[in-house]
């Protein structure tokens, strides 16, 4: 299906990442959002509150992030494509409902414009230290999808992917911007609506009946059950408790294992289909810089400087960080002496790289506490050391 032209601001614009994210959501068909102000994400909801009333949408500012993160789920079951927007402290408050969305398989998008943490940290300055939280911040066992745009253009383009993936897999998608990307203004080209692919909600084809099973699989899709429309007589029950196919609570180990296995597998076993990454000069590289979000732009500079010095350095950039593009990284591993992982934290995604590489190549962290981006020269020094 193609985007509804009503929400698509076709043309070339100068937008910051926060504003571009709002336009991406609109293009994706989001007409319902709930939020609470927090720096550096506030501009997203400010633009939403200006734009939505003109396209038949609705934005409600809630009393807090806890309310926002569950109001979107009521609206999602009500048939809307939904999102909420926040930053570290607010995202921490939303964690319980990210778990609820995972457990009830509610399609929704959580935008996190990352800032320095922990706690109140650096409200106005950048960070990338919420990556592990994005993966498993809520209690219990589940998988999410986490997308890391590195430009305002991508805040638009990938926001559409975020909504599409949320519908396709019925999960909370974490849209992991950072303050640098959120507040950076660049040219953003918004295509014609008929050039934008939209994944519509998949509704059950079964008629309402007493035997209707809320979580029964259909259409040969072995992972993701379709949803029922609300208000049409299905009279279904949704619960955050462990539930059977009917949607009824079932407090036993068997039901738990069946449900959680599927919730986890629908992402893990589709990791290759979900994977999205970019590579620069990896063909002959024996040292590969791994970075995501704003840092993936910094390491390009490092790569250029290293190449000038005759070092064979490339860049591997996971665009979707969770699930990690594992298959491709393993392929690169065979040709690579070392991976240098640059991120604005003191070691999160590097742990995943270490796990995959499992000692078969060197893995080095170029860590940074946040508040600023890396100096590409600092990363270069590490590269030179590794190259020795």
């Amino acid at each position: 299906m193609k985007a509804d032209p009503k929400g698509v601001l076709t043309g070339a614009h100068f937008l910051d990442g926060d504003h571009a994210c709002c336009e991406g959501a609109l293009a994706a068909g989001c007409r319902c959002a709930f939020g609470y102000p927090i720096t550096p994400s506030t501009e997203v909801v400010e633009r939403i509150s200006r734009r939505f009333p003109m396209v038949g949408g609705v934005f409600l500012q809630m009393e807090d992030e806890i309310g926002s993160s569950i109001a979107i789920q009521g609206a999602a079951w009500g048939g809307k494509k939904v999102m909420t927007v926040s930053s570290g402290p607010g995202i921490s408050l939303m964690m319980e409902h990210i778990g609820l969305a995972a457990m009830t398989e509610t399609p929704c998008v959580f935008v996190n414009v990352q800032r320095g943490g922990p706690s109140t940290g650096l409200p106005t300055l950048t960070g990338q230290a919420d990556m592990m939280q994005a993966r498993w911040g809520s209690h219990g066992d589940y998988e999410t999808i986490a997308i890391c745009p590195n430009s305002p253009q991508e805040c638009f383009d990938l926001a559409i992917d975020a909504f599409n993936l949320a519908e396709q897999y019925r999960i909370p998608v974490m849209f992991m911007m950072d303050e640098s990307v959120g507040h950076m203004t660049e040219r953003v080209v918004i295509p014609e609506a008929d050039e934008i692919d939209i994944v519509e909600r998949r509704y059950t084809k079964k008629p309402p009946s007493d035997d209707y099973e809320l979580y029964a699989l259909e259409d040969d899709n072995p992972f993701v059950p379709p949803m029922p429309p609300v208000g049409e007589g299905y009279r279904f029950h949704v619960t955050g408790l462990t539930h059977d196919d009917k949607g009824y609570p079932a407090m036993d180990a068997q039901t738990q294992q069946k449900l959680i296995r599927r919730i986890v597998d629908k992402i893990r076993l589709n990791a290759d289909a979900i994977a999205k990454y970019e590579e620069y000069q990896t063909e002959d590289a024996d040292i590969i810089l791994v970075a995501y979000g704003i840092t993936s732009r910094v390491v390009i500079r490092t790569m250029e400087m290293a190449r000038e010095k005759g070092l064979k350095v490339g860049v591997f950039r996971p665009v979707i960080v969770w699930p990690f593009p594992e298959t491709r990284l393993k392929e690169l591993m065979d040709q690579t002496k070392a991976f240098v992982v640059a991120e604005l934290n003191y070691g999160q995604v590097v742990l995943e790289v270490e796990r995959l590489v499992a000692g078969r190549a060197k893995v080095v962290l170029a860590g940074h506490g946040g508040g600023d981006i890396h100096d590409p020269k600092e990363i270069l020094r590490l590269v030179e050391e590794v190259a020795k």
Partner: protein
Amino acid sequence: MSKETNKEMNPVEPYLRMDRMPHIWCSGCGIGIVVNCFVRALQKSKVDINKLAVVSGIGCTGRIAGYFKVDSFHTTHGRPIPFATGLKTARPDMNVWVFSGEGDLVSIGGNHFIHAARRNADLKVICVNNFTYAMTGGQVGPTAPLHSIATTAPYGTYDQPFNLPFLAESSGAVYVARWTTFHVRQLVKSMQEIKNKPGFSFLEVIAPCPTIYQRRNRLGDGLAGMRYYKERSKVVNGADTRNVDIKLGGDIIVGKFIDRDRPTQLEAMDQELSHKLGDKYVPYPTGVER
């Protein structure tokens, strides 16, 4: 004999998930009475059951959503109101009811409660108040009468309890009533009244929890609870909500206290936006016919 008359069916059955019976509630518990009253209210008002949703939080009362055979949502602790706000916003044509306990709605969920009332979210909120956290074994609740005993107040509570009708009224609810589970007729009538009333309607139902609250406070069984409600309830319709707080073993003022009108959250939004944006505004449905 025709097939229909062969099988005797309780008239409440079409509204309940009979495949989930027996329910989890104790004998003598007041929650079942609330369920029953709601079914009666629905039967009497010939509502389109498909266009009605029930949302609950966590706790003994939170299990209500699981037993009503409607689109139903058993959410997280304290959050049924914001979930319901989202559902109602997405589907203004739906009739959205929240059933939960006092711990859920006004302790952990207190912030959502006051703000939804302030905005006049178009929700029907039924609070079953049994003065304790029953599901977790009887800890002190936000409405527990002073000096009552709880597992976390073994010598008696010393925190001032909330007076819920006063809280609801001062936060902006358009309809506020309190009944006990003894007042089934009035309860059904209140439910019928709020069914079609736009805005934030609040109904407090004082209910016995014989297993936990009454046992610990030596207040007898379920029947003793009902006897207490019968003897010590005073119907004062239109009572000043400042004066309806509940003391341990004291009188319980019941009645319809508030019934007023103001625009719902979506109506207010619609009015403001159409006024300010004019033709640029694409009207959003409010679900209210006035």
